[in-house]
Protein backbone atom coordinates (compact mmCIF):
# COMPACT_ATOMS: atom_id res chain seq x y z
CA UNK A 1 0.00 0.00 0.00
CA UNK A 2 1.41 3.32 -0.95
CA UNK A 3 0.78 6.55 0.86
CA UNK A 4 1.38 9.86 -0.77
CA UNK A 5 1.11 13.33 0.65
CA UNK A 6 1.06 16.53 -1.33
CA UNK A 7 1.78 19.87 0.29
CA UNK A 8 -0.52 22.41 -1.28
CA UNK A 9 -3.56 24.56 -0.72
CA UNK A 10 -6.67 22.51 -1.23
CA UNK A 11 -9.95 23.36 -2.86
CA UNK A 12 -12.06 23.10 0.25
CA UNK A 13 -11.86 24.56 2.91
CA UNK A 14 -11.23 28.13 1.67
CA UNK A 15 -8.11 28.64 -0.41
CA UNK A 16 -6.26 30.62 2.22
CA UNK A 17 -6.05 27.41 4.23
CA UNK A 18 -3.02 25.30 3.46
CA UNK A 19 -3.66 21.57 3.69
CA UNK A 20 -2.08 18.31 2.67
CA UNK A 21 -3.85 15.65 0.65
CA UNK A 22 -3.32 12.03 1.66
CA UNK A 23 -3.92 9.12 -0.70
CA UNK A 24 -3.91 5.36 -0.30
CA UNK A 25 -5.25 2.63 -2.53
CA UNK A 26 -6.51 5.18 -5.03
CA UNK A 27 -8.71 6.91 -2.48
CA UNK A 28 -8.36 10.04 -0.38
CA UNK A 29 -7.32 9.16 3.14
CA UNK A 30 -8.05 10.66 6.55
CA UNK A 31 -4.56 11.32 7.92
CA UNK A 32 -5.72 11.94 11.49
CA UNK A 33 -7.28 8.49 11.58
CA UNK A 34 -4.11 7.05 10.09
CA UNK A 35 -1.97 8.74 12.76
CA UNK A 36 -3.99 7.79 15.83
CA UNK A 37 -5.40 4.41 14.78
CA UNK A 38 -2.79 2.85 12.55
CA UNK A 39 0.11 4.90 13.97
CA UNK A 40 1.55 5.42 10.49
CA UNK A 41 3.02 8.29 8.50
CA UNK A 42 3.40 8.84 4.76
CA UNK A 43 5.61 6.46 2.79
CA UNK A 44 6.08 9.06 0.14
CA UNK A 45 5.74 12.82 0.09
CA UNK A 46 5.28 15.05 -2.95
CA UNK A 47 5.67 18.78 -2.64
CA UNK A 48 3.22 20.58 -4.91
CA UNK A 49 4.89 23.88 -4.19
CA UNK A 50 1.88 25.61 -2.66
CA UNK A 51 -0.24 25.11 -5.78
CA UNK A 52 -3.98 24.51 -5.78
CA UNK A 53 -5.23 20.95 -5.51
CA UNK A 54 -8.76 20.53 -6.87
CA UNK A 55 -10.98 17.57 -7.74
CA UNK A 56 -10.51 16.47 -11.34
CA UNK A 57 -12.88 18.04 -13.87
CA UNK A 58 -15.89 16.10 -15.12
CA UNK A 59 -17.17 16.81 -18.64
CA UNK A 60 -20.71 15.51 -19.19
CA UNK A 61 -21.04 16.77 -22.75
CA UNK A 62 -18.21 16.13 -25.23
CA UNK A 63 -18.83 14.93 -28.79
CA UNK A 64 -15.28 13.97 -29.61
CA UNK A 65 -11.97 15.66 -30.18
CA UNK A 66 -8.56 15.38 -31.80
CA UNK A 67 -10.24 14.22 -35.00
CA UNK A 68 -12.36 11.58 -33.27
CA UNK A 69 -16.16 11.79 -33.67
CA UNK A 70 -18.05 9.63 -31.13
CA UNK A 71 -21.11 9.62 -33.45
CA UNK A 72 -19.20 7.95 -36.28
CA UNK A 73 -19.92 4.23 -36.45
CA UNK A 74 -16.38 3.06 -37.08
CA UNK A 75 -15.12 -0.48 -36.49
CA UNK A 76 -13.02 0.57 -33.53
CA UNK A 77 -15.01 3.15 -31.60
CA UNK A 78 -13.20 2.05 -28.45
CA UNK A 79 -9.85 3.22 -29.80
CA UNK A 80 -11.32 6.64 -30.62
CA UNK A 81 -12.80 7.03 -27.14
CA UNK A 82 -9.48 5.96 -25.63
CA UNK A 83 -7.58 8.55 -27.64
CA UNK A 84 -9.84 11.37 -26.50
CA UNK A 85 -9.78 10.04 -22.93
CA UNK A 86 -5.99 10.24 -22.92
CA UNK A 87 -5.72 13.66 -24.56
CA UNK A 88 -8.23 15.42 -22.27
CA UNK A 89 -6.08 14.57 -19.23
CA UNK A 90 -4.02 17.65 -20.10
CA UNK A 91 -7.20 19.75 -19.78
CA UNK A 92 -7.66 18.51 -16.19
CA UNK A 93 -10.57 16.20 -17.08
CA UNK A 94 -10.51 12.96 -15.12
CA UNK A 95 -14.02 11.65 -16.00
CA UNK A 96 -16.34 12.27 -18.95
CA UNK A 97 -19.51 11.26 -20.78
CA UNK A 98 -18.82 10.64 -24.47
CA UNK A 99 -21.73 12.32 -26.27
CA UNK A 100 -23.53 11.14 -29.39
CA UNK A 101 -25.54 13.66 -31.41
CA UNK A 102 -28.72 12.77 -33.34
CA UNK A 103 -27.95 9.69 -35.45
CA UNK A 104 -29.85 6.88 -37.19
CA UNK A 105 -30.63 3.77 -35.08
CA UNK A 106 -27.94 1.68 -36.78
CA UNK A 107 -25.28 4.07 -35.47
CA UNK A 108 -26.50 3.75 -31.88
CA UNK A 109 -26.73 -0.04 -32.21
CA UNK A 110 -23.17 -0.23 -33.46
CA UNK A 111 -21.52 2.43 -31.30
CA UNK A 112 -23.11 2.13 -27.86
CA UNK A 113 -21.91 -1.40 -27.08
CA UNK A 114 -18.37 -0.24 -27.85
CA UNK A 115 -18.35 2.49 -25.17
CA UNK A 116 -18.61 0.74 -21.82
CA UNK A 117 -18.31 2.51 -18.47
CA UNK A 118 -14.63 2.42 -17.59
CA UNK A 119 -12.39 3.61 -14.75
CA UNK A 120 -9.75 6.18 -15.54
CA UNK A 121 -6.02 5.75 -15.15
CA UNK A 122 -2.74 6.39 -16.96
CA UNK A 123 -4.54 5.29 -20.12
CA UNK A 124 -7.00 8.18 -19.88
CA UNK A 125 -9.95 9.82 -18.16
CA UNK A 126 -12.71 7.55 -16.88
CA UNK A 127 -15.89 6.98 -18.92
CA UNK A 128 -18.94 7.53 -16.73
CA UNK A 129 -21.44 6.53 -19.42
CA UNK A 130 -22.68 7.90 -22.72
CA UNK A 131 -24.68 11.09 -23.16
CA UNK A 132 -27.28 10.68 -25.92
CA UNK A 133 -28.24 14.10 -27.22
CA UNK A 134 -31.14 13.42 -29.56
CA UNK A 135 -32.81 12.18 -31.73
CA UNK A 136 -35.95 12.93 -29.68
CA UNK A 137 -35.64 16.67 -29.99
CA UNK A 138 -37.44 19.64 -31.53
CA UNK A 139 -37.18 20.16 -35.26
CA UNK A 140 -37.17 23.91 -34.80
CA UNK A 141 -34.37 23.89 -32.25
CA UNK A 142 -32.25 21.10 -33.72
CA UNK A 143 -29.27 23.41 -34.10
CA UNK A 144 -26.46 21.39 -35.69
CA UNK A 145 -28.36 18.06 -35.50
CA UNK A 146 -29.29 16.50 -38.87
CA UNK A 147 -33.02 16.91 -39.59
CA UNK A 148 -33.27 13.60 -41.39
CA UNK A 149 -32.66 11.57 -38.25
CA UNK A 150 -34.94 13.35 -35.76
CA UNK A 151 -37.73 11.18 -34.39
CA UNK A 152 -40.53 11.02 -31.86
CA UNK A 153 -41.77 8.48 -29.33
CA UNK A 154 -45.46 9.28 -29.74
CA UNK A 155 -46.31 5.81 -30.99
CA UNK A 156 -44.77 3.52 -28.38
CA UNK A 157 -43.10 5.80 -25.82
CA UNK A 158 -40.26 3.94 -24.07
CA UNK A 159 -40.38 1.07 -26.59
CA UNK A 160 -39.52 3.55 -29.32
CA UNK A 161 -36.59 4.70 -27.24
CA UNK A 162 -35.29 1.15 -26.85
CA UNK A 163 -35.82 0.43 -30.53
CA UNK A 164 -33.82 3.53 -31.48
CA UNK A 165 -30.94 3.22 -29.05
CA UNK A 166 -30.75 -0.50 -28.38
CA UNK A 167 -29.72 -1.68 -24.90
CA UNK A 168 -29.23 1.22 -22.45
CA UNK A 169 -26.51 -0.39 -20.27
CA UNK A 170 -23.83 2.14 -21.20
CA UNK A 171 -26.11 5.18 -21.26
CA UNK A 172 -25.84 7.81 -18.52
CA UNK A 173 -27.67 10.90 -19.83
CA UNK A 174 -30.40 11.42 -22.44
CA UNK A 175 -31.28 14.88 -23.78
CA UNK A 176 -34.80 15.18 -25.11
CA UNK A 177 -37.48 17.77 -25.79
CA UNK A 178 -40.30 17.46 -23.24
CA UNK A 179 -42.96 18.94 -25.56
CA UNK A 180 -42.85 15.72 -27.62
CA UNK A 181 -45.91 13.53 -27.04
CA UNK A 182 -45.65 10.93 -24.23
CA UNK A 183 -42.42 12.45 -22.97
CA UNK A 184 -43.55 12.00 -19.36
CA UNK A 185 -43.73 8.23 -19.70
CA UNK A 186 -40.33 8.21 -21.35
CA UNK A 187 -38.77 10.49 -18.73
CA UNK A 188 -40.17 8.33 -15.94
CA UNK A 189 -38.94 5.12 -17.57
CA UNK A 190 -35.45 6.50 -18.24
CA UNK A 191 -35.19 7.83 -14.70
CA UNK A 192 -36.26 4.45 -13.35
CA UNK A 193 -33.38 2.96 -15.35
CA UNK A 194 -30.97 5.23 -13.50
CA UNK A 195 -30.49 7.48 -16.51
CA UNK A 196 -30.27 11.22 -16.06
CA UNK A 197 -32.81 13.01 -18.27
CA UNK A 198 -31.88 16.42 -19.61
CA UNK A 199 -34.09 18.98 -21.34
CA UNK A 200 -32.71 20.58 -24.45
CA UNK A 201 -33.12 21.34 -28.14
CA UNK A 202 -36.71 22.22 -27.25
CA UNK A 203 -39.43 24.83 -27.64
CA UNK A 204 -41.05 23.88 -24.34
CA UNK A 205 -42.60 26.61 -22.23
CA UNK A 206 -41.93 26.84 -18.52
CA UNK A 207 -44.99 24.79 -17.57
CA UNK A 208 -44.00 21.89 -19.81
CA UNK A 209 -40.44 22.09 -18.47
CA UNK A 210 -41.67 22.03 -14.87
CA UNK A 211 -43.84 18.98 -15.60
CA UNK A 212 -40.82 17.27 -17.11
CA UNK A 213 -38.82 17.98 -13.95
CA UNK A 214 -41.64 16.55 -11.86
CA UNK A 215 -41.48 13.42 -14.03
CA UNK A 216 -37.81 13.11 -13.26
CA UNK A 217 -35.71 15.40 -15.45
CA UNK A 218 -32.74 16.89 -13.55
CA UNK A 219 -30.57 18.64 -16.14
CA UNK A 220 -30.80 21.31 -18.83
CA UNK A 221 -28.56 20.88 -21.87
CA UNK A 222 -26.46 23.96 -22.68
CA UNK A 223 -28.74 26.61 -21.15
CA UNK A 224 -29.87 29.38 -23.51
CA UNK A 225 -28.71 27.52 -26.61
CA UNK A 226 -31.30 25.56 -28.64
CA UNK A 227 -34.29 26.61 -26.55
CA UNK A 228 -36.78 29.47 -26.49
CA UNK A 229 -35.22 32.70 -25.31
CA UNK A 230 -36.13 34.00 -21.86
CA UNK A 231 -39.36 36.01 -21.98
CA UNK A 232 -40.66 37.88 -18.95
CA UNK A 233 -44.15 36.33 -19.30
CA UNK A 234 -42.88 32.91 -20.14
CA UNK A 235 -39.28 32.27 -19.19
CA UNK A 236 -39.34 28.86 -20.91
CA UNK A 237 -36.77 26.28 -19.84
CA UNK A 238 -34.54 29.07 -18.54
CA UNK A 239 -37.21 29.76 -15.91
CA UNK A 240 -36.45 26.43 -14.25
CA UNK A 241 -33.49 28.12 -12.55
CA UNK A 242 -35.84 30.08 -10.31
CA UNK A 243 -38.99 27.96 -10.53
CA UNK A 244 -40.96 27.36 -7.36
CA UNK A 245 -42.82 24.41 -8.88
CA UNK A 246 -40.04 21.88 -8.59
CA UNK A 247 -40.27 18.90 -6.20
CA UNK A 248 -39.02 19.93 -2.74
CA UNK A 249 -35.31 19.38 -2.25
CA UNK A 250 -34.71 18.81 -5.96
CA UNK A 251 -31.85 20.81 -7.45
CA UNK A 252 -32.05 21.45 -11.19
CA UNK A 253 -28.64 21.43 -12.85
CA UNK A 254 -27.85 23.21 -16.10
CA UNK A 255 -24.96 22.91 -18.50
CA UNK A 256 -23.16 26.01 -19.67
CA UNK A 257 -20.62 26.32 -22.44
CA UNK A 258 -18.33 29.04 -21.08
CA UNK A 259 -16.11 29.29 -24.15
CA UNK A 260 -16.74 32.99 -24.66
CA UNK A 261 -18.76 32.21 -27.84
CA UNK A 262 -21.91 30.30 -27.00
CA UNK A 263 -23.06 32.56 -24.20
CA UNK A 264 -22.65 36.28 -23.72
CA UNK A 265 -20.82 36.89 -20.41
CA UNK A 266 -23.79 38.94 -19.15
CA UNK A 267 -26.12 35.98 -19.77
CA UNK A 268 -23.63 33.70 -18.02
CA UNK A 269 -23.70 36.03 -15.02
CA UNK A 270 -27.50 36.16 -14.93
CA UNK A 271 -27.71 32.37 -14.83
CA UNK A 272 -24.93 32.07 -12.29
CA UNK A 273 -26.40 34.67 -9.98
CA UNK A 274 -29.89 33.18 -10.26
CA UNK A 275 -28.82 29.63 -9.40
CA UNK A 276 -25.10 29.20 -8.71
CA UNK A 277 -25.44 25.73 -7.15
CA UNK A 278 -26.82 24.20 -10.34
CA UNK A 279 -24.26 25.43 -12.83
CA UNK A 280 -22.34 22.66 -14.61
CA UNK A 281 -19.54 23.63 -16.98
CA UNK A 282 -19.48 21.51 -20.14
CA UNK A 283 -17.27 21.77 -23.20
CA UNK A 284 -19.76 20.38 -25.78
CA UNK A 285 -16.50 19.92 -27.64
CA UNK A 286 -16.58 18.75 -31.24
CA UNK A 287 -14.05 16.49 -33.01
CA UNK A 288 -12.15 19.61 -34.02
CA UNK A 289 -11.07 20.17 -30.40
CA UNK A 290 -7.31 20.09 -30.35
CA UNK A 291 -7.03 20.34 -34.16
CA UNK A 292 -6.24 23.46 -36.13
CA UNK A 293 -8.38 25.68 -38.33
CA UNK A 294 -10.12 24.02 -41.31
CA UNK A 295 -12.87 21.53 -42.20
CA UNK A 296 -13.70 18.51 -40.05
CA UNK A 297 -16.54 15.98 -39.53
CA UNK A 298 -19.25 16.07 -36.82
CA UNK A 299 -21.97 13.41 -36.84
CA UNK A 300 -23.30 13.27 -40.35
CA UNK A 301 -22.15 16.80 -41.21
CA UNK A 302 -19.13 18.92 -42.08
CA UNK A 303 -17.92 21.70 -39.78
CA UNK A 304 -15.63 24.66 -40.27
CA UNK A 305 -13.16 25.71 -37.54
CA UNK A 306 -11.85 29.24 -37.19
CA UNK A 307 -9.93 30.05 -34.00
CA UNK A 308 -12.15 29.22 -31.01
CA UNK A 309 -15.31 28.98 -33.16
CA UNK A 310 -16.87 26.04 -35.05
CA UNK A 311 -19.79 26.46 -37.51
CA UNK A 312 -21.73 24.05 -39.72
CA UNK A 313 -19.79 24.41 -42.96
CA UNK A 314 -21.26 27.19 -45.09
CA UNK A 315 -23.59 28.57 -42.37
CA UNK A 316 -23.49 30.78 -39.30
CA UNK A 317 -24.90 28.07 -37.01
CA UNK A 318 -22.63 27.27 -34.10
CA UNK A 319 -22.06 23.56 -33.72
CA UNK A 320 -20.25 23.00 -30.52
CA UNK A 321 -17.23 24.43 -28.89
CA UNK A 322 -13.55 23.68 -29.21
CA UNK A 323 -12.52 25.25 -25.95
CA UNK A 324 -10.91 22.73 -23.57
CA UNK A 325 -12.40 22.38 -20.08
CA UNK A 326 -9.67 24.29 -18.29
CA UNK A 327 -10.14 27.21 -20.72
CA UNK A 328 -13.86 27.12 -19.88
CA UNK A 329 -13.11 27.20 -16.15
CA UNK A 330 -10.78 30.19 -16.51
CA UNK A 331 -13.21 32.02 -18.76
CA UNK A 332 -16.08 31.32 -16.37
CA UNK A 333 -14.05 32.65 -13.44
CA UNK A 334 -13.13 35.81 -15.31
CA UNK A 335 -16.62 36.44 -16.75
CA UNK A 336 -18.56 35.97 -13.52
CA UNK A 337 -16.03 37.26 -11.02
CA UNK A 338 -16.96 34.30 -8.83
CA UNK A 339 -14.60 32.73 -6.31
CA UNK A 340 -12.02 30.21 -7.46
CA UNK A 341 -13.84 27.57 -5.41
CA UNK A 342 -17.12 28.25 -7.27
CA UNK A 343 -15.45 28.04 -10.65
CA UNK A 344 -13.80 24.76 -9.73
CA UNK A 345 -16.99 23.31 -8.25
CA UNK A 346 -18.87 24.09 -11.47
CA UNK A 347 -16.49 21.75 -13.28
CA UNK A 348 -16.23 19.02 -10.66
CA UNK A 349 -18.65 18.89 -7.73
CA UNK A 350 -21.76 19.94 -9.64
CA UNK A 351 -21.44 17.40 -12.48
CA UNK A 352 -20.73 14.75 -9.83
CA UNK A 353 -23.90 15.75 -7.97
CA UNK A 354 -25.88 15.69 -11.22
CA UNK A 355 -24.87 12.07 -11.73
CA UNK A 356 -25.28 11.10 -8.09
CA UNK A 357 -21.55 10.42 -7.77
CA UNK A 358 -20.63 13.13 -5.27
CA UNK A 359 -19.38 10.66 -2.67
CA UNK A 360 -16.71 9.30 -5.00
CA UNK A 361 -16.06 12.02 -7.60
CA UNK A 362 -15.84 15.77 -7.79
CA UNK A 363 -14.67 16.10 -4.20
CA UNK A 364 -11.56 15.82 -2.04
CA UNK A 365 -13.46 14.35 0.91
CA UNK A 366 -12.03 11.33 2.72
CA UNK A 367 -13.01 8.13 0.95
CA UNK A 368 -13.46 9.75 -2.45
CA UNK A 369 -11.53 8.55 -5.50
CA UNK A 370 -8.19 10.35 -5.64
CA UNK A 371 -8.89 12.03 -8.99
CA UNK A 372 -7.44 15.51 -8.73
CA UNK A 373 -5.57 18.24 -10.56
CA UNK A 374 -2.70 20.50 -9.56
CA UNK A 375 -3.35 24.07 -10.71
CA UNK A 376 -1.33 27.26 -10.59
CA UNK A 377 -2.94 30.44 -9.24
CA UNK A 378 -4.44 31.31 -12.63
CA UNK A 379 -5.95 27.82 -12.89
CA UNK A 380 -3.64 26.39 -15.53
CA UNK A 381 -3.34 22.63 -15.18
CA UNK A 382 0.11 21.59 -13.99
CA UNK A 383 -0.58 17.92 -13.33
CA UNK A 384 -3.46 15.45 -13.39
CA UNK A 385 -3.89 12.49 -11.05
CA UNK A 386 -6.33 9.59 -11.28
CA UNK A 387 -6.68 7.17 -8.35
CA UNK A 388 -3.69 8.86 -6.81
CA UNK A 389 -1.46 8.13 -9.79
CA UNK A 390 0.18 10.88 -11.86
CA UNK A 391 -1.33 10.52 -15.35
CA UNK A 392 -0.27 13.81 -16.93
CA UNK A 393 2.20 16.57 -16.20
CA UNK A 394 2.90 19.92 -17.84
CA UNK A 395 6.29 20.24 -19.56
CA UNK A 396 7.63 22.89 -17.18
CA UNK A 397 6.56 20.81 -14.19
CA UNK A 398 8.64 17.86 -15.37
CA UNK A 399 11.92 19.62 -14.68
Amino acid at each position, binding site marked *: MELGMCGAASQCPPLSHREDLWVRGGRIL*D*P*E*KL*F*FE*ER*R*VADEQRDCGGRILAPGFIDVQINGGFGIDFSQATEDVGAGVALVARRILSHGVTSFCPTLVTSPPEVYHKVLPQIPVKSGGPHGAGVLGVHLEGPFISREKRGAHPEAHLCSFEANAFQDVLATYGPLDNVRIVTLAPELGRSHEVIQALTAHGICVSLGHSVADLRAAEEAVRSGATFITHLFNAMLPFHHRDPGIVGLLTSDQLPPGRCIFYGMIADGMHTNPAALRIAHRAHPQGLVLVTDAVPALGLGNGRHTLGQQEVEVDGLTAYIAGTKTLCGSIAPMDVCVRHFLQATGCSVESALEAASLHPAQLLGLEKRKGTLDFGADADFVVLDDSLHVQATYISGELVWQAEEARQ
Partner: protein
Amino acid sequence: MNVVKTFFFPLGLDFLSWKLCITVMRLVILDNYDLASEWAAKYICNRIIQFKPGQDRYFTLGLPTGSTPLGCYKKLIEYHKNGDLSFKYVKTFNMDEYVGLPRNHPESYHSYMWNNFFKHIDIDPNNAHILDGNAADLEAECDAFEKKIKEAGGIDLFVGGIGPDGHIAFNEPGSSLVSRTRLKTLAMDTILANAKYFDGDLSKVPTMALTVGVGTVMDAREVRIKCSLMFPL
Protein backbone atom coordinates in the same frame (compact mmCIF):
# COMPACT_ATOMS: atom_id res chain seq x y z
CA MET B 1 -5.55 50.24 26.83
CA ASN B 2 -4.88 46.77 28.06
CA VAL B 3 -1.47 45.26 28.32
CA VAL B 4 -0.91 41.55 28.17
CA LYS B 5 1.57 40.33 30.69
CA THR B 6 2.72 36.79 30.53
CA PHE B 7 4.19 34.98 33.47
CA PHE B 8 6.34 31.90 33.52
CA PHE B 9 6.71 29.74 36.54
CA PRO B 10 9.55 27.40 35.76
CA LEU B 11 9.78 24.84 38.48
CA GLY B 12 12.97 22.89 38.71
CA LEU B 13 12.69 19.86 40.91
CA ASP B 14 15.35 17.94 42.66
CA PHE B 15 14.27 14.31 42.55
CA LEU B 16 15.78 13.54 45.93
CA SER B 17 14.14 16.36 47.79
CA TRP B 18 10.55 15.62 46.78
CA LYS B 19 9.34 16.85 50.17
CA LEU B 20 10.04 20.36 48.99
CA CYS B 21 7.53 20.99 46.21
CA ILE B 22 9.56 23.83 44.81
CA THR B 23 13.33 24.07 44.87
CA VAL B 24 13.70 26.85 42.35
CA MET B 25 10.97 29.01 40.91
CA ARG B 26 11.77 31.60 38.31
CA LEU B 27 9.24 34.17 37.22
CA VAL B 28 9.53 35.52 33.68
CA ILE B 29 7.31 38.41 32.63
CA LEU B 30 6.90 39.34 28.98
CA ASP B 31 4.96 42.15 27.36
CA ASN B 32 2.74 40.33 24.94
CA TYR B 33 1.36 36.97 23.88
CA ASP B 34 3.55 36.61 20.79
CA LEU B 35 6.75 37.30 22.70
CA ALA B 36 5.75 34.83 25.37
CA SER B 37 4.93 32.16 22.79
CA GLU B 38 8.26 32.66 21.11
CA TRP B 39 10.10 32.57 24.42
CA ALA B 40 8.39 29.33 25.39
CA ALA B 41 9.01 27.73 22.02
CA LYS B 42 12.67 28.72 22.05
CA TYR B 43 13.05 27.33 25.51
CA ILE B 44 11.52 24.00 24.55
CA CYS B 45 13.53 23.89 21.34
CA ASN B 46 16.81 24.55 23.13
CA ARG B 47 15.99 22.03 25.80
CA ILE B 48 15.45 19.32 23.20
CA ILE B 49 18.57 20.21 21.20
CA GLN B 50 20.79 20.40 24.28
CA PHE B 51 19.50 17.00 25.39
CA LYS B 52 20.81 15.51 22.12
CA PRO B 53 18.01 12.93 21.71
CA GLY B 54 18.71 9.78 19.71
CA GLN B 55 17.64 6.20 19.07
CA ASP B 56 18.14 5.08 22.67
CA ARG B 57 17.62 8.43 24.26
CA TYR B 58 14.23 10.05 23.79
CA PHE B 59 13.27 13.46 25.12
CA THR B 60 9.89 13.27 26.86
CA LEU B 61 7.60 16.25 26.76
CA GLY B 62 4.34 16.84 28.62
CA LEU B 63 1.95 18.94 26.53
CA PRO B 64 -1.15 21.11 27.07
CA THR B 65 -4.08 22.18 24.89
CA GLY B 66 -6.26 25.29 24.81
CA SER B 67 -5.80 28.75 23.34
CA THR B 68 -2.75 29.76 25.38
CA PRO B 69 -0.22 27.33 23.88
CA LEU B 70 -1.30 27.85 20.25
CA GLY B 71 1.33 30.51 19.60
CA CYS B 72 4.02 28.31 21.08
CA TYR B 73 3.00 25.35 18.89
CA LYS B 74 3.09 27.58 15.81
CA LYS B 75 6.63 28.63 16.63
CA LEU B 76 7.79 25.08 17.27
CA ILE B 77 6.37 24.09 13.88
CA GLU B 78 8.26 27.00 12.34
CA TYR B 79 11.52 25.83 13.87
CA HIS B 80 10.85 22.34 12.59
CA LYS B 81 10.09 23.55 9.05
CA ASN B 82 13.30 25.62 9.11
CA GLY B 83 15.20 22.44 9.78
CA ASP B 84 16.28 23.57 13.25
CA LEU B 85 14.23 21.12 15.29
CA SER B 86 13.27 17.47 14.83
CA PHE B 87 10.74 15.54 16.89
CA LYS B 88 11.95 12.19 15.62
CA TYR B 89 13.32 11.24 19.03
CA VAL B 90 10.75 13.04 21.13
CA LYS B 91 7.94 11.35 23.05
CA THR B 92 4.92 13.40 24.07
CA PHE B 93 2.29 12.93 26.76
CA ASN B 94 -0.76 15.18 26.69
CA MET B 95 -2.30 16.38 29.94
CA ASP B 96 -5.90 15.45 29.38
CA GLU B 97 -8.78 14.43 27.09
CA TYR B 98 -12.55 14.57 27.29
CA VAL B 99 -14.48 11.42 28.15
CA GLY B 100 -17.08 10.21 25.68
CA LEU B 101 -16.23 12.64 22.88
CA PRO B 102 -15.47 10.84 19.57
CA ARG B 103 -11.77 10.98 18.82
CA ASN B 104 -12.37 12.75 15.50
CA HIS B 105 -14.75 15.35 16.98
CA PRO B 106 -13.36 18.80 16.14
CA GLU B 107 -13.27 19.72 19.85
CA SER B 108 -11.45 16.62 21.08
CA TYR B 109 -7.90 17.11 22.27
CA HIS B 110 -6.81 14.47 19.75
CA SER B 111 -8.11 16.74 16.98
CA TYR B 112 -6.47 19.74 18.59
CA MET B 113 -3.08 18.07 18.77
CA TRP B 114 -3.31 16.68 15.24
CA ASN B 115 -4.36 19.97 13.63
CA ASN B 116 -2.19 22.30 15.69
CA PHE B 117 0.93 20.23 16.09
CA PHE B 118 1.38 16.58 15.07
CA LYS B 119 0.46 16.88 11.41
CA HIS B 120 3.09 19.59 10.90
CA ILE B 121 6.05 17.80 12.48
CA ASP B 122 7.98 14.56 12.16
CA ILE B 123 7.00 12.84 15.40
CA ASP B 124 6.55 9.06 15.29
CA PRO B 125 2.81 8.39 15.87
CA ASN B 126 3.78 5.64 18.32
CA ASN B 127 5.40 8.26 20.51
CA ALA B 128 2.48 10.69 20.67
CA HIS B 129 0.44 9.69 23.71
CA ILE B 130 -2.97 11.09 24.48
CA LEU B 131 -5.42 9.61 26.98
CA ASP B 132 -8.28 7.71 25.32
CA GLY B 133 -11.53 9.14 26.60
CA ASN B 134 -13.46 6.35 24.89
CA ALA B 135 -11.61 3.44 26.45
CA ALA B 136 -13.81 0.63 27.73
CA ASP B 137 -12.11 0.75 31.14
CA LEU B 138 -11.24 4.38 31.96
CA GLU B 139 -9.39 3.55 35.18
CA ALA B 140 -7.23 1.02 33.38
CA GLU B 141 -6.56 3.63 30.69
CA CYS B 142 -5.31 6.09 33.33
CA ASP B 143 -3.09 3.46 34.95
CA ALA B 144 -1.72 2.46 31.55
CA PHE B 145 -0.88 6.11 30.84
CA GLU B 146 1.08 6.42 34.10
CA LYS B 147 2.85 3.19 33.18
CA LYS B 148 3.77 4.53 29.72
CA ILE B 149 5.29 7.63 31.33
CA LYS B 150 7.32 5.45 33.65
CA GLU B 151 8.46 3.20 30.78
CA ALA B 152 9.55 6.30 28.87
CA GLY B 153 11.79 7.18 31.81
CA GLY B 154 9.61 9.92 33.22
CA ILE B 155 8.95 13.35 31.74
CA ASP B 156 11.85 15.69 31.06
CA LEU B 157 9.78 18.81 30.58
CA PHE B 158 6.10 19.26 31.35
CA VAL B 159 4.60 22.31 29.66
CA GLY B 160 1.26 23.51 30.87
CA GLY B 161 -1.13 26.35 31.45
CA ILE B 162 -2.85 27.55 34.58
CA GLY B 163 -6.45 28.66 34.90
CA PRO B 164 -7.64 31.88 36.57
CA ASP B 165 -8.52 29.86 39.67
CA GLY B 166 -5.18 28.09 39.67
CA HIS B 167 -6.29 24.81 38.11
CA ILE B 168 -3.77 22.73 36.16
CA ALA B 169 -5.08 20.34 33.48
CA PHE B 170 -8.41 19.32 35.00
CA ASN B 171 -7.11 19.38 38.57
CA GLU B 172 -9.29 21.96 40.28
CA PRO B 173 -8.07 23.88 43.36
CA GLY B 174 -8.06 21.55 46.32
CA SER B 175 -6.85 18.56 44.32
CA SER B 176 -4.39 16.36 46.16
CA LEU B 177 -0.79 17.31 45.46
CA VAL B 178 0.06 13.65 44.98
CA SER B 179 -2.87 12.87 42.68
CA ARG B 180 -2.19 10.67 39.65
CA THR B 181 -3.86 10.31 36.23
CA ARG B 182 -7.57 9.79 36.83
CA LEU B 183 -11.16 10.48 35.84
CA LYS B 184 -12.51 13.88 36.88
CA THR B 185 -15.91 15.53 36.65
CA LEU B 186 -15.58 18.97 35.11
CA ALA B 187 -16.33 22.09 37.10
CA MET B 188 -19.50 23.94 36.09
CA ASP B 189 -17.40 26.97 35.14
CA THR B 190 -15.44 24.82 32.71
CA ILE B 191 -18.59 23.34 31.18
CA LEU B 192 -20.15 26.77 30.73
CA ALA B 193 -16.93 28.15 29.23
CA ASN B 194 -16.78 25.23 26.77
CA ALA B 195 -20.39 25.57 25.60
CA LYS B 196 -19.38 27.99 22.87
CA TYR B 197 -17.40 25.22 21.17
CA PHE B 198 -20.48 22.98 21.09
CA ASP B 199 -22.95 25.30 19.37
CA GLY B 200 -23.97 26.76 22.73
CA ASP B 201 -25.75 23.48 23.54
CA LEU B 202 -24.91 22.56 27.13
CA SER B 203 -26.16 19.00 26.61
CA LYS B 204 -23.41 18.43 24.04
CA VAL B 205 -20.54 19.54 26.29
CA PRO B 206 -18.55 16.71 27.89
CA THR B 207 -18.91 16.59 31.67
CA MET B 208 -15.96 14.35 32.44
CA ALA B 209 -12.35 14.12 31.46
CA LEU B 210 -9.27 12.03 32.05
CA THR B 211 -6.45 14.13 33.40
CA VAL B 212 -2.89 13.76 34.66
CA GLY B 213 -2.70 14.44 38.39
CA VAL B 214 -0.81 17.16 40.18
CA GLY B 215 1.59 14.49 41.33
CA THR B 216 2.07 13.31 37.74
CA VAL B 217 3.05 16.83 36.69
CA MET B 218 5.29 17.43 39.69
CA ASP B 219 7.14 14.16 39.00
CA ALA B 220 8.57 15.72 35.85
CA ARG B 221 12.17 16.81 35.98
CA GLU B 222 11.11 20.30 34.91
CA VAL B 223 7.76 22.05 34.74
CA ARG B 224 7.00 25.18 32.78
CA ILE B 225 3.63 26.89 33.27
CA LYS B 226 2.38 29.73 31.15
CA CYS B 227 -0.39 32.12 31.93
CA SER B 228 -1.65 35.29 30.28
CA LEU B 229 -3.13 38.16 32.25
CA MET B 230 -4.62 41.40 31.03
CA PHE B 231 -3.75 44.55 32.99
CA PRO B 232 -5.76 47.68 32.37
CA LEU B 233 -3.42 50.67 32.29
